[in-house]
């Protein structure tokens, strides 16, 4: 049996019951649950963004064996509403030339790299935050409602890019409110209720 890409053993924090979960490369897992059930807490704990307990390994390598920034470049959490620290859009990207074609596939104009961040709509910000994470080529993406502010066309574009990245070998753990989206994306589906994660039918 092949070793999974990401192994989560007894991951816990206030508001989250211990989670045991394996994620293989090229696997897409969707996660849903009511508001306040701990979806965001769970994703943030995997990325080690809040104090938490438990073992999380990538390719058999424990996250505590490396500096946290190295871990987060490989296991990247993308919040539903991301922050922007510079004035121009392209200043947030390690390499805008790589990001520009991706932005176009996400139905954004290629020229938006030169825009001020203040000009972006919520939906544009959400897609650019996704592109910003993709450019760093993470092994695992933890996406917190990545299409919550998008219209159907933009949602389809995001899902198309996600499918392609997954077939390239990236593992995705995606939180969604939309059951239809979970069905479209396929893969295993988990429910989280009162901080308790369980596998469920889609």
């Amino acid at each position: 049996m092949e070793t999974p890409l990401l192994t989560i053993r007894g991951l816990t924090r206030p508001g989250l019951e211990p989670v045991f979960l394996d994620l293989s490369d090229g696997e897409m897992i969707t996660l849903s649950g009511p508001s306040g059930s701990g979806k965001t807490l769970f994703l943030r704990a995997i990325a080690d963004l809040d104090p938490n307990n438990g073992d999380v390994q990538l390719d058999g390598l424990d996250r505590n064996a490396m500096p946290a920034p190295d871990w987060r470049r490989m296991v990247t959490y993308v919040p539903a509403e991301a922050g922007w620290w510079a004035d121009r859009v392209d200043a947030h990207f390690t390499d805008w030339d790589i990001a520009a074609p991706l932005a176009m596939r996400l139905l954004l104009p290629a020229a938006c790299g030169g825009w001020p961040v203040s000009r972006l709509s919520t939906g544009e910000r959400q897609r650019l935050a996704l592109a910003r994470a993709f450019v760093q080529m993470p092994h695992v993406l933890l996406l917190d409602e990545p299409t919550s502010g998008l219209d159907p066309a933009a949602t389809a574009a995001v899902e198309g890019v996600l499918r392609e990245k997954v077939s390239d070998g990236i593992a995705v753990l995606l939180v969604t409110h939309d059951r239809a989206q979970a069905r479209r994306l396929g893969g295993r589906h988990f429910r989280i209720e009162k901080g308790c994660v369980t596998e469920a039918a889609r």
Partner: protein
Amino acid sequence: MKDFITLDYGDVAMAAALVLINAGLSIWLQLGLERRLLIAAVRMVVQLSLIGLVLQWLFALVSPLWTATAAVLMVLFAGREAMARQERRFSGWWGFGLGTTSMLMASFLVTIFALTGQVRPDPWYDPRYAIPLLGMILGNTMTGVALGLDSLTTGAWRERVTIDSRLALGHGRSEAMRSVTHGTMRTAMIPMVNSMSAAGIVSLPGMMTGQILAGVDPVDAVKYQLVISFLIAGGTACGVLAAVFGGAWRLTDARHRLRLDRLAPPRG
């Protein structure tokens, strides 16, 4: 050098009459300020009179131990004052300790530098020079440190989403905090820079004015004031640097997480 005009208590009483006129105005115009005004005036009289006696006693002793004790007490009071000026302060010991330690380090370092390098009294710890120098340096350092810590903690709170996004992308803690720490350093240094550029045109610095009143030649008083202003600049920079970087360190942890839970809830 006793060519200054000594004031007696009658002179003080005459000047104090102005406060009574203020109080009368407040009653006449129903401003409701008279009570606070009088209490503040009485407090000032008591505090300054006591300090006068303490300084007289301290200057007569010229004891390194008592001078150091007075200096540490001054820093502790400054630390309390700096803490009171913050809206979101660190919880626990850090709330008092961070600002106080920064001020202690900066003001002691700069005062000792001044005593051994430029002013050079004999002995070097002569309280007649050590205490006023420390007082001036500490007062300005406190303004910078209090401003810096307040701006750091409120800035980190306001920009928490941005800082968190940077951390999530794998930026290190100091990189993620940079926009806040840099803005904070500027905020905390600006009063010191402004007071230097306005000195002599808009305002006559208090120490220089005091020396002139005491009969010192204005050119000599200016030299003294220049040294003091540079010392203040050095002390403020030192204290602000320590407080802001110490604070940014405390607001994040070894696993590069933003730890706003280490701040006490804001006062309502």
